[in-house]
């Protein structure tokens, strides 16, 4: 199947998504909730594109590629809406306490010229450092669902889950208790897939000196 993306031709196999085609061309498009190895979640709504002849701005991660499709990642409508979604996402986080770049989100925000968040922060969560090797820092969490998918679908553990709904949603464990109370085995899948560093390794301890 041949597609045109931002004026460049690209060929993909049947079953591919538009995002696959975008990535094939190394076009920079935010895809915060898309783990390269897993099925799309469709949650972060940042990979929005414009497709010729199609209404709206579909998320490219779950848009099947079709032969002859003409896609623009740089269409003004797509950029404007994507920027607004990134702003909403960025406004979920607080930048103090050494959190500053937010990984993929930070990169996407600076590429879209988002200096400061447009909305005031709505919550404050303490960092959960109860596990030995990593922290859960909800002030850097964008609720994309990659970590809970990795824990459940990949490792078949289910130590963490999305909890609550609406604006109260959070990542956590049963009873909103500390991570250490859960069945987490510290396998590291969630840390590996987290796009913003909300789940991140603790500092490597200083080498032991005899």
């Amino acid at each position, binding site marked *: 199947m041949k597609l045109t993306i931002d004026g460049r031709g690209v060929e993909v196999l049947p079953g591919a998504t538009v995002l696959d085609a975008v990535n094939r061309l190394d076009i920079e498009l935010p895809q915060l909730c898309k783990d390269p190895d897993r099925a799309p979640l469709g949650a972060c709504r940042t990979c929005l594109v414009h497709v010729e002849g199609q209404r*709206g701005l579909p*998320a490219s991660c779950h848009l099947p590629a079709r032969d002859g499709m003409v896609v623009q990642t740089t269409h003004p409508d797509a950029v404007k809406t994507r920027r607004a*979604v990134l702003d909403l996402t960025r406004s979920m986080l607080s930048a103090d306490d050494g959190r500053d770049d937010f990984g993929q989100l930070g990169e996407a925000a600076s590429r879209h010229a988002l200096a400061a968040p447009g909305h005031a922060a709505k919550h404050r969560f303490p960092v959960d450092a109860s596990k030995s090797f990593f922290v859960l820092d909800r002030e850097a969490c964008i609720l994309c669902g990659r970590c809970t998918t990795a824990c*459940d679908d990949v490792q078949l*553990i289910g130590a963490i889950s999305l909890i*609550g*709904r609406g604006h109260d949603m959070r990542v956590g464990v049963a*009873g909103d208790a500390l991570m250490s109370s859960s*069945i987490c085995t510290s396998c590291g899948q969630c840390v590996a897939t987290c796009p913003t560093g909300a789940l991140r390794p603790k500092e490597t301890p200083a080498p032991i000196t005899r």
Partner: protein
Amino acid sequence: VSDWHAAVRGFPRERTWLLPALHAVGHELRWIPADALREIASHLRVPLSEAYGVVTHYPEFRLEEPRKRVVRVCTGVSCRIRGGLDLLKALQGAAGDDVTLEHFDCAFNCSVAPLVEVDGVHRGRVSVADVSAVISTPPHPALSPSGGEGSAGLLLPSGERVGVRGGSYSELLRHAQSLAQQGPTLVVGVGSCSLAVGVAETLAALREEVARRKWSARIVTAGCGGLCWAAPVVTMLAPDGEARVLIHATADRLPALLDAAAADRHEPDPGVGDFLSHQRRELTASCGLVDPDDIADAIRRGSYAALAGAITGGEPGAVIETAKAAGLRGRGGAYFAAALKWEGARNAAGSPKYLIVNAEEGEPGIFKDRHLMEGDPHRLLEGALLAAYASGATRVYLYIHGEAHLSAARMARAVEDARRWGLVGERILASDFSVDVEIRRGAGGFVLGEETALMESLEGRRAMPRPKPPFPTEAGLFARPTVINNVETLFAVPLIVAHGAAWWSALGQGHGTKCFGLSGHVARPGLVEIEMGATLRDLLERIGGGVPSGRALKGAVLGGPSGIIVPPRDFDEPLLPGGRVNPGTGGVVAIDETVAVRDVVRTLLDFNTRESCGKCTPCREGTARLRDMLDSSGSLDHSAVAELSEVVRVASLCGLGQAAPLSILSALREFPAELR
């Protein structure tokens, strides 16, 4: 001693039973303690954190023990504009220490607003003056105070329970006819609406009066015929078909009404004629007449004839072609062609195939599906069986709202009786067609209106929409081909199969009829069925009787929290899918000139914010930011609101998120002066 342990252990050890198990515990204990959640999770082999993620996702599950009594005041739009907030204020001063007092988004009983729920029992048309008395008066004994199965105590075992399994349709019909009773009948409309305004007492009084007067009349408990405004309603049916409709027939007024009728002094209320004569009652033809608990009565009125015809024809494709030719579109609000779903599932690889009936009516202000299920459950069942036949489904899930107890009880009875009569299960009507039907209950998730979220819920997960594709007809429930249809859509199917495609497409400019729950500032709130293409003026004035206070209408909320606020200048626009004024799911709340549009919009937006499933960023974050803008004290920046609304509309994952800002967008357009 509560036996919730046994209830939990009774479930098969599969995740799909997570919600039913939570319901079982909630029913016994009124809340879900942490040890019960642990036991459920362990029995169903669901990781505890995920079970916690599920239980916190659905608003109906309580994670804290309530006090001895639970009083909830409805503050949805219909109730709040008719005094719901005043009731809440009055109760905040009056409720004792043993009462957990809450307000909630909708009781889905808008036609008897304002409403207070006392220990699970609805009390409608409550005034501030008597609200304290209402909460201290015990409900009629027939109404279960536990809040469990609601009014199941009123379900009289009136129908014939012995089936004729394995018989053909003509045998069934003969059997049903042999059970028919002659003579005059007194039909009492027993629905959620009338139960909230004293029909249980009316029914008891009627039984006494009939015995005292030594009348030979039979008493039949039907559903509500749509005249919620007049409830309780008793219809006297003479053998010659003459009907006398006694309205506002409360227990205290009943003897005088019966005296007058017996002496031929019955004066029909002109409102009844006005209310009915402007409607086109096809789907609701039997509502308020048929005994919903009597399958023989339903069969005598034509139920299952269309199913029998289709099965005898032996061509599932013929049902698809008929619905296609009729142009039947989904009544859940999206108006997608129903036959295309059936065809898609039929042609899809994979088995088994499923049919889901979406009876999780969860949009505040909309209550039509409850009326249909309460009034004529066998018609829904027949529609579901026809859709299953057409799409090749072998299992039907009837997914009913967790608080629609009367709907669930009547559907359960209908399914059970249909099974006895050989209409559900193996070899239906002695044919090769087999399908089983199972009832599942929701737990108050507004987002369950989204089809894939509902499927996640049936699988025992958080109700969060899936990205599409794959579409449900290819890979839906348990990744199998799945059709999901709304209650009202399926109600139309037996009629279309029986009368033909041309009959339906001749109605409503090709779109058939549409049911609406009518409430708010109208004289005659109730359940209305009109031809598509009728106008809001028809609904609000000709049928609804205008504003009772004589005040002018400011507008109408059309379609609940996903809908729009229509100004009077559009009241003469035809209601047509895809038209300028889209009929939506089927709820109309009239607001008069005293209502602040800003408060209405704030109520709808607040609901969308809290009930967003949380999965996608634009809906979860955007609706909250829009609510913040409305709540801020300064002047409202219209262009900022419009811009953010547009982002939520365009970028959200599912239809509900995309529709969340429609009410505020319509208010900005039509009532800018009210959003300063």
